[in-house]
């Protein structure tokens, strides 16, 4: 879907992106992760030509973006930034309608789409459509930012630390809701962040960058189990395992048929991280997993949990 081949970009004396090649599959949520100044934002912005690269090629849907009119290219690619950048003098509806209007949609189609999008991001159109950005909270504003980026139903969405400026509570809520929405729509997403937790929680695959170079592009589990360089393991740190646990749920792990008496209970949807926390706080090395009908489906032991993750 998106293919970068030997992309290089220099600013004055330093190389921001250094010979980066990677391929992102359709429907995938790919994270560009790394310390600040590693070139992740420049890489992202080169895809919709907000930054023009010095050498290399970039394909979106097998079309070379360098051969496209930048403005027309950008209308087909959603773009969400950390500072949101809503137009303060326009209503929420008018903000969301930006790209449809540029594409010349008629008013009826635009309005219908705006209402659809606001509902999709959890904002009641009747309540929000005619408000101005200033009247919304940061979280609500970024919901509008996401709706605006999705307006023309783009196949690709570029997001530059979209939830970075939000308070932890709204950030978490938006991460979860956004992940669900992305799966539902099947949009291919390139997502820049420097937050490891966010990267591991959201990413199908993570491209770890450092000093303009792509170090490794893999599933988080692979990054954990077979890091390409020592930098990978040192970047993710000792807690990487715990973060990996948050990606998986109890569902699918083989349970033991022993008596659940006296064990703390979790559900099949509980994340393994929470399950582990429950074990620690209950002081036992096993948990009862509910069958959803009030009974117990079996017992999850500590060693089963550890094995499941290693696989």
């Amino acid at each position, binding site marked *: 879907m998106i293919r970068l081949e030997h992309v290089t970009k220099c600013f004055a004396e330093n190389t921001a992106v250094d010979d980066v090649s990677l391929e992102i599959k359709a429907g995938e949520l790919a994270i560009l992760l790394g310390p600040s100044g590693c070139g992740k934002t420049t890489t992202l912005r080169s895809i919709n030509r*907000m930054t023009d690269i010095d050498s290399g090629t970039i394909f979106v849907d097998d079309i070379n973006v360098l051969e496209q009119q930048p*403005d027309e290219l950008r209308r087909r690619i959603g773009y969400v930034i950390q500072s949101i*950048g809503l137009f303060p003098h326009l209503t929420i509806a008018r903000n969301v309608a930006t790209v449809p209007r540029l594409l010349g949609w008629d008013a009826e189609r635009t309005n219908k789409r705006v209402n659809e999008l606001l509902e999709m991001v959890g904002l009641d159109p009747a309540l929000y459509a005619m408000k101005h950005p200033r009247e919304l909270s940061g979280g609500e504003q970024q919901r509008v930012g996401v709706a605006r980026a999705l307006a023309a139903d783009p196949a690709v969405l570029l997001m530059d630390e979209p939830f970075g400026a939000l308070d932890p509570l709204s950030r978490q809520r938006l991460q979860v809701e956004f992940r669900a929405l992305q799966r539902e729509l099947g949009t291919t997403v390139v997502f820049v962040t420097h937050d490891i937790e966010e990267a591991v929680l959201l990413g199908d695959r993570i491209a770890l960058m450092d000093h303009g170079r792509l170090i490794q592009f893999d599933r988080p589990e692979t990054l954990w189990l077979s890091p390409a360089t020592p930098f990978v393991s040192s970047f993710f740190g000792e807690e990487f395992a715990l973060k990996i646990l948050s990606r998986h749920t109890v569902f699918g792990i083989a349970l033991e048929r022993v008596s659940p008496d006296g064990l703390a209970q979790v559900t099949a949807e509980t994340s393994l991280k929470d399950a582990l926390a429950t074990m620690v706080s209950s002081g036992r090395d096993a948990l009862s997993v509910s069958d959803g009908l009030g009974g117990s489906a079996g017992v999850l032991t500590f060693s089963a949990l550890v094995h499941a993750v290693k696989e």
Partner: protein
Amino acid sequence: MASSSNTGTLRLSGDQIVGMAGALLGALVTAVGTYLELRPNRILGGDSVTAIAAFGPGAWALLGLWALMFAACLPGTGRTGAMVRGLVANTTMVVSVLLVARRATAFVAQSGDVARASLGISFWLSLGAAYIVIFSALPRAKSRNARALVSLPGIVMIAGLLFTGQLNSLSILVEYAVNADSFNKALVQQLSYTLGATGIALVIGLLAGVGAAKNPRLEGPVFATLNIAQVLPSLSFIGLLIVPMGWLGLNFPALKALGVSGIGWAPVFVVLLSYALYPITRNVYTSLKTLDESITDAARGMGMKPIQRLFTVELPLAFPVIIAGVRIAAVQTTAAAILAALVGGGGLGQIVFFGVQQTATDLILLGVIPIVALSLTIDASLRFVETLVRTAQEGGLT
């Protein structure tokens, strides 16, 4: 609120001290100084009379009103005191104008048609004192309506008296009646200078400002040119233009037909236009340069073309700042246009210079007062537009 009641002692706040000073000044100039000058004719000196000598009991009423304003500044009177002194100041303005008009009518009736009743320094100072009291009350007025109620009724009622002919026996209006034709012509010329120069400066300033903001290579030349015009003293600037404008008038019949020559309206207009260009161009440029980067970045990322960004995002957001530039330019042009009279370009300055030549103070005032009123009106109305746009853009007053 008005006093620091928590300490138990009553203390004066800043606005109350200012209000008291205004009320004391008002009372002082009502008691002493020339309120009215009653002269047998336009040239001869006459009796300089105080308000007390001129109005008798009416003056005591005025003093009572000033005392009331003073009382409304005392500690503990708070917002009510401020509203009271503001409204009383408006009343006092209207009452004193009515009193001088009545006394002037009586004097002219008694002394014959050539007799003149001119407003004295104390009268003008008392108007000033009333405004000091009004300004002291304004910060305490919370709503826009309350502020209008405190600042506008006096001036509106005086304007009403003026236009219904109630003040016609005052010397300044006699001067108007005598010079009505040249005054009206001068006023139209003055307005044409202001509107013409500001209007054209807005068009050029928008182009130059957008150009300078978008193209770094234009930035230097644009502001270098404007700075030269800005530092030239106005009279020397007009002087410098006499030769080139004269040449244009002589060599291009079309321009000559428009009245372009070394003197007259043309050089003045060019000077006014150059002065007006600076604040407008500067504000267009600055407002575009200081737009929130995330907004322009988002606009670009959505796929807006430069021209679409300019018209749907950048200029609308810059509009309040641009209007502020237009306001400065218009006020500045109104004042500078007085100089037109020096090179035969007309305008209200001509009335002022006539007055100076004839040592007729009232004729000078007939020129000066409309200029001041014009400046204040332009300033207030453009400020209002600015607020209106800002409010609309930010989604109401919430």
